């Protein structure tokens, strides 16, 4: 007993086939889009992998690339079958493959669902990776002579300039870290010696930030040093001064950038799921319509297909 039977004459069948063929090719384009978004996401992660301690998970972009390629393949095959379904001779050679194809499509839809879910859930992991990576980044800022960390300073400076942020949580993170290397400290100077001695771990700490924290939109030239000392600068109150340096932390800035990217990609994948479910028409012969009736998970069009459309 077919589910939701509909009568089709030849003209309607042709129109249905054409419409479905268009939808299949639209799905191929969406598949290409997902593939390129996966590549874009992977490149963005690679660009800033130093900020994440080279520890970031590439699961989501790899999955997106895989899903994109699969979408192209599956939908191109579906389009070909749809195109051939109006011709009984050509269609005869596709008939045996249809059942496995249906199962493949089901599996593919489950994979899509999993990808969308991961897009939203991996953001938590991303947040933790960023926190850890930035903390280490700030710690190794001064080590421009250590192999493997030579470019940490440059990367962190460029990140702070590009994302308009300073430090991990905020600019005070720089006060807890020695970011000037000992090579550039005059150890014979009394002031320097005092400061080193006054610290338990022998670190040269000060209430200053690097130049990359400076806000170009500030009306006065940037004040980098002695930030908590009002008397060190003329007409300066550190409690009310907002424009001098960036107040936002880099973890928050980077996270909001990546999470918005992942949210948009996740939304696109969910939209693709809906599209895939709609476009599950399966050409069926009169013999097989009973078989399709049992696979009634898919949408309306599928059922239209089985009882009439291509049963020539």
């Amino acid at each position: 007993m077919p589910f939701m039977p509909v009568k089709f004459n030849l003209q309607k069948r042709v129109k249905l086939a054409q419409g479905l063929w268009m939808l299949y090719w639209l799905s191929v384009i969406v598949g290409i889009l997902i593939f390129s978004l996966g590549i874009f996401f992977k490149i963005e992660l690679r660009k800033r992998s130093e900020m994440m301690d080279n520890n970031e998970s590439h699961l989501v972009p790899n999955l997106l690339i895989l899903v994109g390629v699969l979408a192209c393949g599956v939908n191109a095959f579906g389009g070909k079958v749809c195109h051939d379904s109006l011709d009984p001779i050509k269609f005869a050679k596709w008939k045996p493959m249809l059942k496995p194809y249906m199962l493949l499509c089901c599996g593919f839809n489950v994979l899509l669902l999993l990808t969308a879910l991961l897009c939203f859930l991996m953001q938590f992991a991303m947040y933790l990776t960023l926190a850890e990576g930035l903390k280490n980044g700030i710690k190794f800022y001064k080590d421009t002579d250590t192999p493997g960390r030579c470019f940490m300073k440059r990367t962190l400076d460029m990140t702070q300039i590009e994302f308009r942020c300073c430090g991990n949580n905020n600019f005070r993170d720089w006060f807890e870290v020695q970011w000037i290397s000992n090579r550039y400290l005059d150890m014979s100077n009394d002031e320097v010696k005092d400061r080193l001695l006054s610290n338990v771990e022998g670190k040269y700490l000060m209430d200053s930030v690097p130049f990359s924290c400076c806000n170009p939109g500030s009306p006065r030239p940037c004040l980098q040093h002695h930030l908590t000392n009002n008397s060190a600068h003329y007409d300066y109150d550190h409690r009310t001064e907002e424009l001098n340096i960036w107040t936002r932390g880099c973890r928050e800035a980077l996270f909001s950038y990546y999470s918005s990217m992942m949210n948009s990609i996740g939304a696109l994948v969910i939209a693709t799921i809906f599209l895939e479910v709609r476009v599950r028409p399966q050409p069926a012969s009169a013999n097989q319509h009973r078989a399709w009736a049992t696979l009634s998970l898919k949408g309306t069009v599928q059922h239209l297909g089985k009882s009439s459309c291509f049963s020539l």
Partner: protein
Amino acid sequence: MAVGKVTFTKAEREKLAEVLWLLNWISVVTGAILFGLGLFLKIEIQKWQEVMSDQGILYVPHMLITTGLAACCINFLGGKICLDCADTNKFLRWKLVMMPYVVCTFFFTSCVLVGALMCYSIRSQLEESLFLGLRNAMRYYKDTDTPGRCYLKRTLDLLQIQFHCCGNTGYRDWFQVQWISNRYLDMTSSTVVDRLRSNVEGKYLMDGVPFSCCSTFSPRPCIQQQVSNSSAHFNYDQQSQQLNLWRRGCRQTLLDHYTGIMQSIGLTVLLIWLFELLVLTGVRYLQTAMENVLRLGDPESESDGWILENSLAETARSNFNIIKNLGKCYQIDDDPNINVPTATAEQEVPSQQVQIPVTSIASRLRSH
């Protein structure tokens, strides 16, 4: 003696019309590309307009935008005309428009060429504009409270950060300018007062640079103050000095940036110009071929097409005469009532031989 004379059969004419229709539609696309290039250039220039002293450079993108739009319209019309030209009957509709259309397209094509050449010739004007603009921007860097100059500091800082440059010619330009406003100088401090007094114009000059001159590639934290004094900082050797700040001047950097963009745009516009010239030549051949067909009266016959009916010199001369005679349009030189002596001297009857019988006329009048 016609210039570029080619004979066309009917089939060839129809093929030419079809090909030209297609080429015209491609030209519409290239016109849109031209428009897009002009728009892109305009946006790029406007991004850093504050550091350019004169806006004359905006002629280039405006020219490209207008020619792009004109290209779309003219070639759209051309496509329509060429499609109709395949058939002699439909051509009659366009007969009167064709010549003005060809002349118009010729002028428009030369505008495209002018646009392309402008892209290459604007460099010296741009350099001058950038020199003055950057000099003023550095002078007004500190005036963040003056209306009209509030954002000059931010623009200049962002420019130096993005283009990795410092100052006009180099970082030393900042030593000659007071870039810290008096609002942020403690006038009660003796060091400040000394420095102000030691300068002739009362400016607070120092060998320091703004933070945006700092190089991100330097291995050590940025040294902004007392840049030229190597003993003021520990371990401040030659290499540290080289890597510390951006070495290039912003004028040279911006000049290179814009010259690069405009050279690529200029090349593309030149290619578009060559294409338009090709289309124009085709349309001219089609026009002359169709007109000759009408003149011969037989739509199936072969006809000649050319670029110019007579040689270049003759055409120039006849056009020049037309223009000359245009000025004389209000002079009456064909009026038959004016006695213009056109006859030769022998045919003239001397006035002494003509004796008008005045007395006979007078007597006749008296008798009535």
